[in-house]
């Protein structure tokens, strides 16, 4: 059967709410409005005010409240309407959630999930289009997850909710409505995807493409075009930003000898920059036949006009171009 990413997230939350009474959801419009993007549709009707809580528009406050609740034994899911608004609360995510287990030398854990859409959407301009993967990925004490498919969304959200540590769960608004095939195994109530393990979405011998979230779709599309020209790409879906599955990437490079990373976020100090650094420092470096390269968003705030926005994020042709340049064809 096919399931959209939105429905996969909804079902995952529903099942985890049912499984563990300590799990609850809070955020703006999550309850009576059914969620700004309808991800929490039906949950308030089913679970009521105690488990699904509408907050005022006060991110710093409610993120702090969520972290406090996690410290005292509950397992909150704190929704940011978009991760752009998490900047208002980022102190609570980093200083109160991420660092506390360390600062308390293991006495105080913070089993919380921060989730919401991340990155570029369509026509929402500069303040609403930023990708926060690199910012959160920078911090020890946080797990940072970035699902692509419906299966990813389901398995990773369940794992995130069951994880006893703070997890930043980066969804993507443009992926919410995309349907994916879902096997019966994936639909089982205890289907979990381990955090920290990447997945090879497509096997190939000539070049490794590493990506996360919506850009995985573009990599697969680029790979299909390149295959017609005899270039076989191996597409790796990172699934987790932190901890980074460097081993999966290294193993792939040792086979293909070429690397292109693809991300929607800005280039400087970004996901691709980190992956390239790992490869430089690790065993796979000697297997590279050409410098590893990053495909990223353009280094500008996101413009509004369609023609400008389209040219601000990676397109399939950019991936194809970078692959060919790297392979020197």
């Amino acid at each position, binding site marked *: 059967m096919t399931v959209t990413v939105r429905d996969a997230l909804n079902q995952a939350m529903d099942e985890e709410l049912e499984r563990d009474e300590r799990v609850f959801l809070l955020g703006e419009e999550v309850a009576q409005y059914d969620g700004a993007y309808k991800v929490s549709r039906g949950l308030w009707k089913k679970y009521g005010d105690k488990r699904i809580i509408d907050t005022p528009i006060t991110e710093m406050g409610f993120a702090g409240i969520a972290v406090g609740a996690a410290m005292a034994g509950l397992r909150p899911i704190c929704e940011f309407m978009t991760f752009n608004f998490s900047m208002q609360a980022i102190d609570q995510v980093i200083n109160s959630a991420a660092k506390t287990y360390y600062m308390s030398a293991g006495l105080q854990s913070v089993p919380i999930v921060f989730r919401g859409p991340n990155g570029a959407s369509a026509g929402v301009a500069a303040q609403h289009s930023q990708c926060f993967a690199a910012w959160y990925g920078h911090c020890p004490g946080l797990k940072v997850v970035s699902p692509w498919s419906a299966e990813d969304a389901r398995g990773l959200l369940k794992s995130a909710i069951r994880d006893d540590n703070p997890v930043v769960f980066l969804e993507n608004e443009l992926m919410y409505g995309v349907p994916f095939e879902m096997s019966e195994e994936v639909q089982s109530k205890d289907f979990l995807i381990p955090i920290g393990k990447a997945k090879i979405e497509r096997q190939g011998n000539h070049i490794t493409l590493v990506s996360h979230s919506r850009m995985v779709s573009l990599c697969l599309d680029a790979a299909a075009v390149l295959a017609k020209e005899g270039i076989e790409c191996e597409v790796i879906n990172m699934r987790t930003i932190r901890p980074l599955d460097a081993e999966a990437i290294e193993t792939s490079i040792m086979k293909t000898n070429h690397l292109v990373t693809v991300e929607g976020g800005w280039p400087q100090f970004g996901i691709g920059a980190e992956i390239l650094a790992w490869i430089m420092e690790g065993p796979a470096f000697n297997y590279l036949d050409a410098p590893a390269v990053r495909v990223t968003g353009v280094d*500008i705030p996101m413009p509004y*006009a369609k023609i400008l926005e389209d040219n601000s994020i990676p397109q399939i042709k950019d991936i194809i*171009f*970078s692959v060919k340049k790297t392979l020197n064809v």
Partner: protein
Amino acid sequence: MRKMLTIISNVLRGSASRNGAELVSEGARVVVSARTYADFTPQATFDIKKCDLHKLEEGPPLQAMLSREEGLQYYRTMQTMRRMELKADQLYKQKIIRGFCHLYDGQEACAVGIEAGINLSDHLITAYRAHAYTLTRGGTVREIMAELTGRRGGIAKGKGGSMHMYTKNFYGGNGIVGAQVPLGAGVALACKYLGKNELCVCLYGDGAANQGQIFETYNMASLWKLPCIFICENNKYGMGTSVERAAASTDYYKRGDFIPGLRVDGMDILCVREATKFAAEHCRSGKGPILMELQTYRYHGHSMSDPGVSYRTREEIQEVRSKSDPISMLKDRMLSNNMASVEELKEIDVEVRKEIEDAAQFATTDPEPPLDDLCNHIFYNNPPMEVRGTNPWTKLKSVS
């Protein structure tokens, strides 16, 4: 002759409905158009609602004077705003406007009334429901609409969109709820610092009113006696959440605690104007900040992706439209005091419609921004620099 004219105009006024649809016989029309402007009342005084006061001994006056010229100008501006927003609704549904679009129809008396109480040399900042303020602060309908459609003739050259429009002394258009409030106090600080007797009007909604940064701002603005008029446009709903569900106290005009406050009928442009004048006087006399709560209503949902009826009833919306519409209220006042004729106002409607149509035409035919503008405007007063494109081989150019 005069008596006949009076009888005919009374008949015509009697048959004019609130929404302006009237039947005029051919003969009567010909006769009435012979009326001269000398027949109109040049100025009238109106009773306006008393404002609720917080930490104030006196409030704005209970009467407001309105001249014919002012009335016609307010009417034209509010009608322009109304038509512009409705056109934006249409263009959004045709997918010519994309992304977020937060419409202001219903709240016109606030924007027009506020501007009538301050000067263009004063400063103003608001959140994302900003098209109307862009207009009152000097933007043209053409450049506002072209910004909504993302064209090079847009007020922000197509780069900002609905939520990011700016003019001189108008600091947007801000997408992050509440963030504009400290910004506004900062503008007020600059006003005080530069000593030009200017002030800053700093707007936010009932949803934003619970933001912590607003209370931080209240504190500093008060401590430092900043010339800042904080204005809460309370339209009863923060996106889909009613005020009762979001605020422990919905007396937004009192939430400034140590800051004096007024609660104002935001559907009555004269009320808004008088309150703004009162508040401006308070600031300019060095007394520090003041807070106004404007009780208003938005006909549309929060944005174009919100139908606006899952958290409120259609009956409620209809009730406000029929009993408290700001444009109708002004129109009724002017007509019943013989300050304008039905035809005159209809003519304004026709002119407004034409202006909006022309602007929409421009907004849909103007070309999109040129690609070589993509990387411009990163830094101000900076030498040209290179910007990384999507891959290492694409180097783009950025000029200030």
